């Protein structure tokens, strides 16, 4: 376990460093003077420019600059936002919890809808199977930025069941209420993906020899399903969860934009449009770290649940 975990964490750190280095290289190679990004195109005095150059070490060589940024990150200094005129960490403080709520709610929905529909489709077969899979195929082609507006139009504007935009007044219950439609919009595509994967793997397990043997021995179907089919059949869901997490992390940008939610995703897009590099760099770092850490957790879970992985990497 220790060597397995050590290797995964090392790989994760390398990934994070590689991404931050890539972002820095791109900035280094970018056309124009980086100071233009910091002033966001606004006219400034030469003294202010010189101060900015000094503050961001723009006259230092590439690696000095990179390591001073990295050092800043470790001491909690993510730099100054040029377009918001404030510390990046202040911008993040209120937005991280919002996005976290959204992603967690969405993840729960994906698992509940995806697993239920996939298992039912595989076990029942017939018309239910065909209908579920046809719906899943259609839904997986609807991007979050379109489904968001369909949901707003139907459930917020026509039926009035949920609020259309924003996250309300800060009361936690009210926030959850506001986040139902955004989470659903974020969950739809991935739910279809999970449903299809679950159905395929449960059906594969159903046709295995040991399931036939158990049936012949007269073991109740309920027990066969829960002990033999689902236990093995649900493992592949873990292996696609990396893709699902990547989708969720990026998906927040679209959903928060559509529902006017002040979270990390909307901040990232707003900052990108303003070419506010300090903010984009900080948010990218947070998202990549979240992505890497969650993937390591998934691998550990896999290691516990599947003895085959354990024997391979012991």
């Amino acid at each position, binding site marked *: 376990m220790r060597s397995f975990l050590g290797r995964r964490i090392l790989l994760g750190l390398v*990934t994070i460093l590689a*991404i931050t280095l890539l*972002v820095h290289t*791109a*900035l280094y190679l*970018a*056309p124009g003077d980086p100071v233009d990004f910091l002033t966001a195109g606004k006219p400034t005095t030469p003294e202010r420019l010189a101060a900015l150059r000094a503050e961001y070490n723009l006259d230092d060589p590439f690696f000095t600059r990179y390591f001073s940024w990295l050092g800043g990150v470790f001491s909690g200094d993510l730099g100054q936002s040029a377009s918001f005129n404030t510390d990046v960490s202040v911008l993040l403080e209120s937005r991280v919890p919002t996005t976290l709520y959204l992603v967690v709610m969405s993840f729960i929905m994906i698992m509940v809808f995806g697993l239920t529909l996939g298992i039912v489709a595989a076990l029942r077969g017939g018309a239910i199977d065909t209908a579920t899979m046809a719906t899943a*195929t*259609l839904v997986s*082609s*609807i*991007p979050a*930025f*379109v489904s968001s*507006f*369909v949901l*707003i*139009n139907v459930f917020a*504007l026509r039926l009035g069941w949920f609020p*259309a*935009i924003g996250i309300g007044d800060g009361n936690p219950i009210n926030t959850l209420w506001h986040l139902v439609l955004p989470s659903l919009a974020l969950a739809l595509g991935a739910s279809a993906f999970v449903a299809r994967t679950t159905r395929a793997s449960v059906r594969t397990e159903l046709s295995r020899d040991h399931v036939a043997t158990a049936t012949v021995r007269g073991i109740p179907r309920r027990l066969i399903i829960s002990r033999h089919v689902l236990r093995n059949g649900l493992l592949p869901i873990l292996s696609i969860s*990396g*893709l699902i997490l*990547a*989708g969720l*992390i*990026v998906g927040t*940008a*679209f959903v928060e*934009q*559509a529902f006017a939610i002040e979270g990390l995703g909307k901040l*990232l*897009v707003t*900052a*990108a*449009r303003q*070419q*506010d*590099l300090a903010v*984009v760099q900080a948010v*990218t770092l947070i*998202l*990549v770290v979240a*992505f890497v850490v969650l*993937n390591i957790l998934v691998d550990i879970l896999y290691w516990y649940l599947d003895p085959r992985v354990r024997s391979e990497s012991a």
Partner: protein
Amino acid sequence: MSIAQAAALVGPRKRSRLSHLGFLGWIALAIIILFAFIAIFGAALAPHDPDSIDIAYANVGPIPGHPLGFDELGRDLFSRILVGARSSFIGPMMLVLISTVLGTTLALIAAWRRGWTDAGLSAAFDIAFAFPGLLLAIVLVTIFGPSLGIAVIALTLAYTPGMARLLRSTALRETGMEYVKAFRVMGYGDLRIVIRHVLPNLLPFIIAQAIITFGYATLDLGGLSFLGLGVQPPTADWGAMVAAGAPGLLQGYPMQTLAAGSCLVLAAVSFGVLGDRLARMWGVE
């Protein structure tokens, strides 16, 4: 071994018939042909000037001569949808072409050289494939400024590893076939075997995969335009129109957002279904 014998090892090529496309496959193909037609001739087909603004008609619903009504600036919505097809498809087309060519080349190199080359390339594909491509696109846009070209380049970097990863396993199987060994024994050059003999056998798989990828590319580039990081207004583009119609939707005028969004979804579904049917028809699932 003669060439005839070598050819015999390849086995009889499975002849595919278009009737195997099925009902849905034909519908998908028809929709794609229609969209392609609109993308090429949209500007000529548009009944009105897609850029002529008349605030008096802002958000007015369908009236005779204007089947979809008007957008938030009083421009004819139907004309903008027709004209928008071009910018909504030209990006995905470049993206799919470039990433398919690059991905195929990398996959063939990995499958042909095997050993360390394959191990190194595969590890790189795996890492790059797992990373969210849109995040990379947003970073590049921040640095180089929003434009369709930057969006295409960024997504090419994200799509190529996925393409290469999928093709590699098929290419590996193909390069391990008897006929390849036979050609090698006969002293044919590597490049000639790969390009003249291996590549044609992989083509059905590559084409089906490219068509499926086209669907995703339409949604991803449409999404970047929706975020304001791709095609820039006032150019008519379906993704940008979904965003432009959002304030209207909240006031009870959902037509622009829903019409542009439906076009994107219809295109994505059609490419997905057609690619899937072609793959099944050619037996390369």
